[in-house]
């Protein structure tokens, strides 16, 4: 694996499968009486959040703590950042505190990339969501959820998502989740289809390794999983779609639409859900919806990422399994 996790494109297929396999082992820790491993004892992980995201932050925090790392939470609100301190100076401060890894959430696309590649700091950088760019650990937890549900917990070990059909619905244009998922799911062999009104599909999408459709009803019967993206109501004001009602009618997932999906197909949502907008309560609360499971899987996937990046002298080498007798 590379030293940083900035984009889902940083992961080869072997890397991605290794993360998912490792996450599967990490998931077992959650079932134990003592949900803690000594693995990252003495390592310091900084959660550097320039954007409010309680869910993602506590997920990373839980992951780091289960691995016994020391966690420093640095949130931009009420800090020197709001007084005009730059990303660079903040990073230098954190490095001086001895951070081994910086988990960064930032409203600007590319901020984690800059942090990792500008020579400001030596720490490992993990992207916890940057602007409208990427959110690779979300994609990993989604892939983990997909593999468990569609391939199987044990049957999935060592495997990808070959031939599985995943449909991603909603505000693709502004979604870092969609970008990371398209890249990662493609790497793992899945067939990805994006469904959105044309206003919410980026110019340039033709170079992405996926299909694009504007017709949700046509795609649903051919989907093993449907991932609903959050649609912010304020997009309406920028004329991306006329009204909330019309959006729901054309792109929302309700019980009637869910019935068009194959029997075993699942509904995913990265949260937080806007019930009534992109997903009805009936769908959100159904057995097919994995939203809550995804939250639990998020901790396992992030434990796997932190372990594989920080658990040795250097990141894991995913092509060879090492074994020793001593």
């Amino acid at each position, binding site marked *: 694996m590379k030293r940083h996790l900035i984009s889902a494109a940083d992961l080869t297929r072997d890397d991605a499968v290794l993360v998912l396999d490792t996450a599967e082992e990490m998931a077992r820790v959650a079932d134990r009486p003592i949900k803690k491993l000594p693995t990252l004892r003495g390592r310091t992980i900084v959660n550097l959040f320039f954007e409010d995201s309680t869910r993602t932050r506590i997920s990373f925090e839980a992951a780091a703590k289960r691995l016994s790392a020391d966690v420093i939470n640095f949130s931009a609100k009420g800090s020197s950042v709001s007084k005009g301190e730059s990303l660079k100076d903040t990073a230098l401060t954190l490095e001086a505190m001895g951070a081994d890894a910086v988990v960064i959430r930032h409203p600007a696309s590319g901020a984690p990339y800059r942090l990792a590649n500008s020579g400001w700091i030596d720490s490992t950088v993990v992207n916890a969501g940057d602007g409208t760019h990427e959110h690779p650990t979300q994609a990993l937890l989604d892939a983990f959820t997909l593999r468990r549900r569609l391939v199987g917990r044990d049957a999935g070990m060592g495997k990808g998502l070959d031939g599985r059909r995943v449909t991603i619905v909603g505000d693709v244009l502004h979604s870092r989740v969609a970008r990371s998922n398209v890249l990662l799911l493609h790497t793992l062999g899945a067939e990805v289809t994006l469904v959105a009104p044309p206003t919410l599909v980026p110019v340039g999408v033709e170079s992405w390794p996926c299909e694009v459709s504007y017709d949700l009803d046509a795609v649903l019967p051919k989907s093993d999983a449907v991932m609903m993206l959050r649609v912010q109501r304020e997009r309406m004001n920028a004329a991306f779609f006329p009204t909330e009602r019309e959006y729901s009618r054309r792109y929302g997932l309700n019980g009637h639409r869910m019935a068009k999906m194959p029997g075993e197909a699942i509904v995913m949502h990265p949260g937080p859900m806007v019930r009534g907008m992109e997903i009805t309560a009936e769908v959100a609360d159904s057995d097919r919806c994995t939203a809550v499971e995804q939250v639990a899987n998020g901790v396992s996937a992030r434990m796997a990422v932190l372990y594989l990046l920080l658990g040795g002298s250097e990141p894991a080498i995913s092509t060879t*399994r090492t*074994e020793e*007798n001593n």
Partner: protein
Amino acid sequence: MDTSTDASTAGNTDARPVLEGPDIARVLTRIAHEIVERAKGAEDVVLLGIPTRGVFLARRLAEKLEEITGRKIPVGSLDITMYRDDLRMKPARALGRTEIPADGLDGRLVVLVDDVLFSGRTIRAALDALGDLGRPRAVQLAVLVDRGHRELPIRADYVGKNLPTSLRETVKVQLAEEDGRDTVLLGSKQQTTGA
């Protein structure tokens, strides 16, 4: 899989077998009897193999114990990777499987099973891992080969073969489940780790 396998299959003249298939079977049978004897019928025994080859040995031992006692013996696996004390000396390692039998470990006699006992650090890590998984009545250790050179105050309760070695030598256990044949090879480091 690893370098020693390559070396041996490539006909490394330096690596010579010290235990062959029938020896290994005999040794495991003896250990099974010892466990029954010392554990007074092995009623509360749980076997935990340390991945990779310790798991296969634990399963074989469980079969033998079932033959002797006529009872089902719980067997599982205990991956110690995340408890190792040398994690920072190598790139992050892929994890093995930890599988604890359904009835758990509390109040049980846990017999850890590994292929080679060397520095004792693996077993130290295994004891730490066990502590996070439950509270056994007692913990014992069974190994196929004890090659000496302990770096910690740890000893095995059941030993298939004591094999005095020099630090320049390597001991490789091959088992049919993983390597296609049963054998224990003694080689020299220059030859077997050079690849």
